[in-house]
């Protein structure tokens, strides 16, 4: 249809309104489609980095050869009894699925940092230790009262308030 119209002589009247409208509408939808595809590509590109936000400790050790000294995020639980503060840095180990990775972090850890808490560390491998400069605490979705038995502690076994309680 379009070829017959384009080869038509100049004196030929313009295509009827309905045809023109249909064509402009088709063009508009094509534009919308292009925009959507572009958005989709951008989202895919952006999300593929966001979706691999971290490697767990066992994944990281498994991928160690390919990771080299590139920066990435490492996730693991702080192993109790390994935390040693040394001036401005803190050394500890994280574990995940039985794999333990020693870590040295430069800078102060956030306030919730403690043994047994899962953390995400930003940094790179340096030998077998992970050289990190940012600790992010990854807390769980569990919320439990700090002292669930504080009332019974306060009241005590005899039913009278314990001295200095509360």
């Amino acid at each position, binding site marked *: 249809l379009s070829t017959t119209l384009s080869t038509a002589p100049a004196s030929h009247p313009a295509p009827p309104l309905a045809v023109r409208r249909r064509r402009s509408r088709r063009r508009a939808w094509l534009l919308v489609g292009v925009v959507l595809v572009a958005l989709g590509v951008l989202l895919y590109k952006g999300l593929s980095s966001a979706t*691999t936000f971290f490697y767990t400790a066992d994944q990281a050790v498994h991928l160690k050869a390919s990771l080299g000294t590139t920066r990435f995020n490492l996730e693991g639980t702080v192993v109790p009894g390994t935390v040693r503060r040394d001036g401005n840095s803190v050394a500890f180990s994280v574990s995940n699925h039985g794999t333990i990775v020693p870590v040295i972090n430069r800078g102060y*850890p956030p306030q*919730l940092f403690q043994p047994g808490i899962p953390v995400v560390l930003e940094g790179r491998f340096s030998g077998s230790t992970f050289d990190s400069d940012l600790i*992010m*605490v990854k807390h769980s*979705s569990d919320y439990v009262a700090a002292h669930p038995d504080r009332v019974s502690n306060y009241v005590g076994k005899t039913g009278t308030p314990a001295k200095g309680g509360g």
Partner: protein
Amino acid sequence: VSRLLGLGSLIGLALTAVLGLFITPPDRVMGNLVRLLYVHPAVAWVAYLAFGVCALACILYLWPRTRSFFWDRLAAASAEIGVVFCALTLATGSIWGRPTWGVWWVWDARLTTTAILLALFIGYLALRRVSTDPTVRAKRSAVAGLVAFADVPIVHMSVVWWNTLHQPATVLRPGLASPTVTGSMAWTLLVSFVSFTVLYGWLLVQRYQAAVLESRWEDEGMQLALSERWAEADPAVTTIGASR
């Protein structure tokens, strides 16, 4: 109904504040930081809800049998509230993230998809401002609203599908029967959800009524302008009549 919703949300939010700040205990790990639990999830829930209502209204507008400007206005009103609450979600989440995670923002899947959601619905509102025929605008924005809503399930499932710094869902998840929140924290969380939902209802009614008034103002402005033009023409008509 509007006054009842307003009063209800006021009481509910006051109750949430009292329970959240004074009655509930500090968390085992987070200490007093846990008190944002009674704000941030409920605000995020309202954003989901508002965008959900918007999407539903978009479908009902596009469905020929239920097509009416009621749905168009409702979708617009709900999306507007959703944008506000989505922005609040990002803000409160950021404030919560700084002391707990140690960072204001990370580009993990949950945070990134939520930022995209906000951008999508701001885009939806921008599209509505493109001046055109109301019917064209309604149809066009209904499609855009549905496209934007497609991100909501992605946001919600992002913590399950991918590795994120953000923890998995506490409330809207399978296995609601085995709560990860205990005692007074659990029902304070419930109170916060209910009162923020009532607040959403109140805001929606207000915004919808404002939208009705706006469109009436436009219509009557047009009528007024027309009658003024007629009034201008009147003397000419009468003088022509008189000269005869």
